[in-house]
């Protein structure tokens, strides 16, 4: 994203908006992850506590999701860098 066309005041306001959005995104990421790991790991309702197998599934699910997101983020950043380079060469 190219923020260089914004004035300093606009830039400051933009930073505040980005911060708020990051907090909202983080909240959604968190509750979405809980739902995802719950859906995949819990399907026995003969008890109201997690079994040790379910618990280990939930922890692996959480770890794996972050590793997955990080890997996607790295590929995503590479792709965006490529796009920027192509756009600049096209000038």
């Amino acid at each position, binding site marked *: 994203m190219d923020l260089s066309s914004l004035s300093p005041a606009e830039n400051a306001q933009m930073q505040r908006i980005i*911060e*708020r959005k*990051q*907090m*909202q*995104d*983080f*909240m*959604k*990421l*968190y*509750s*979405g*992850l*809980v*739902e995802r*790991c*719950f*859906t995949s*790991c*819990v*399907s026995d*309702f*003969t*008890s*109201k*506590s*997690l079994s040790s197998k*379910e*618990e280990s599934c*939930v*922890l692996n699910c*959480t*770890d794996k*999701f*972050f*590793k*997955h*997101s*990080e890997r*996607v*983020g*790295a590929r*995503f*950043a590479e792709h*965006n860098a490529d796009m920027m380079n192509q756009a600049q060469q096209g000038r």
Partner: protein
Amino acid sequence: MSSQNIEVAVAELDMITDVFNRIVSSCHSKCINPRYSEADLNKGESVCVDRCVAKFFEVNKKVGERMQSMGGAGAGGAGGGGSPFGM
């Protein structure tokens, strides 16, 4: 514009509503028979819903603890786990 206080309170409200809606949806999928031959929750469904809510909260806690132990899962930081900006 809204004050900082309001913003925090609204964020908290959104979070609680979001969690509630996800529990409603997840436990509906897990416990409610989609044939809908009756209007009431039967005994099995009711018990399932109660346990489902309890287990969802347990998963919520485990995931939260895990994220915190990954370090810096404070407000605004995704704990290093995947944002499109690499920030």
